[in-house]
């Protein structure tokens, strides 16, 4: 399926990506070609075929609910781009 430039901008926004104007044509063309290729799947009749999301059949994996050692606050914050008082810092998200 052909995808339009506007659709690329819309989907990129859903994924919180910005596509700059200069590469938009190229990205649109590349993704269109890939999606057109994917359309070959329509040649196959898949009526009543169950989809597979996982190749190995496993049922629920249960474990005992016990407290064990985990990362400390310091370890968890070690890689944070910005932190303060044992918490992650982000730009202000509530308006006045």
């Amino acid at each position, binding site marked *: 399926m052909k995808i339009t430039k506007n659709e690329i901008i819309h989907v990129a926004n859903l994924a919180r*990506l910005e*596509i700059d104007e200069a590469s938009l044509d190229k990205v649109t063309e590349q993704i269109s070609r890939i999606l057109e*290729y994917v359309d070959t*799947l329509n040649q196959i009749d898949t009526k009543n075929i169950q*989809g597979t999301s996982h190749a*190995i059949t496993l049922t629920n*994996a249960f474990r005992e609910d016990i407290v064990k050692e985990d990362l400390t606050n310091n370890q968890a914050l070690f*890689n944070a781009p910005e932190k303060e008082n044992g918490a992650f810092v*982000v730009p*202000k998200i509530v308006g006045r």
Partner: protein
Amino acid sequence: MKLYELTIHEAHDLLKSRQISSTELTRAVLDHIEKKDDKIGAYLSVFEENAMIQAREADQMIARNEIQPLTGIPLSIKDLICTKGLPTTCASKILEKFIPPYDATVMTKLKNAGAVTVGKTNMDEFAMGSSTENSRMHITRNPWDITRIPGGSSGGSAASVAADMCIGSLGSDTGGSIRQPASHCSVVGMKPTYGRVSRYGLVAFASSLDQIGPITKDVTDCALLMNVISGYDPQDSTSVPKDVPDFQKSLEEGLKGLKIGLPKEYYITEGLDPDVSAAIDNAVNTMKDLGAEFVEVSLPHTKYAVAVYYVIAPCEASSNLARYDGVRYGFRDKDPKDLLQMYRSTKSKGFGPEVQRRIIIGTYALSAGYYDAYYGKASQVRTLMIEDFKSAFQKCDVLLSPVTPSPAFTIGEKTDDPLNMYLSDIFTLSANLAGVPGISIPCGFSKNNLPIGLQLMGSHFNEEMLIKVAYNFEQATMFHKKKPTL
């Protein structure tokens, strides 16, 4: 013989008999990296100090007679496997400064076995690619011809093994990322059955397809590494609680009476290089001489593998990579005007073009109105592909095929044409979609001396069979003994 040229089992024998120490061996490998890696670019980081500490500890273990098969062996690790306190970048700007606070389960297992980590290897960013050209740090060159790609995404690992800049390595394989570079670099690479090896601490790309596996100088080493890294892990609920056999045991069995299937669709693929085709024909004859029988089988949905994979993998990736938002770890762009802008500029600057392309494809294929047509359809065809494998394995014990349609291509040849790059993955994708194990072993060289690999695929949890066939072939041909000149 130079120490860095040793295989794991050769080095083990010398360590055990105290003819060499791990300190000497590790030093030799580090010096060789220092000398050769400027030319190849296999490593993203080398942990000289840390490796020498581990080597000394290994020597102490050996002195206490606590030697295990990997004790004191210098290994390289693909840079998407978490190493506690040591950088793990996924060759991405977004994780450039990331230092994991914990070890992946495979790393814990290697440490317990006394192995030495010499460094982390280059890869396509987040393992998305077939050439290692998508690394945001630098490219890696093929030790057999430095104008060519080493394959990918575990290109750094395969090149480090081929160029003797480590004794063995761990990579990861989501659609061929261990087997294809192993094939291009004339080394051994195994993708285990999905669930055989814990994915805990493996940075996720496509969770239903990813597996960690060994890249080694020979099949014996592959078996030895598999022995250590395999097994159920409570930290990974998709790992399978199943006993792990001693893979080394299957090495000595012969091939008499074994049935090998040739999937006919793999041999009529357009663009199959004549040198690859000839090498595979020779391999079939060698196996026949070893007592194996051949049957033709059919995997009718093979030609749809690329389409299925390039829907499912991007869908899973778009979900997995949503976590890189500049809040908890990794890169954050400076001075965003608000939260939304922070997400946008962080992701757009942090991720490279191929990763962004796949996130967009995945997001599109999962979005309202398109889910059934793309993800739904692809997952149904995936079911049909699994059925194909099931019926094939009723007729044979193992499948034999090429790994790639042609030997390593030149650097830059396919970078502007992602679809063309994807199509070169045709023979390796199916194993990931079906969850079956696969191995790539050297099976010859093209007219211009480029390595050619042979792929064997088995039924779920039957890695033993692959190791047995691969070992017999290796010992009958000895292609693995040929080294690139650097």
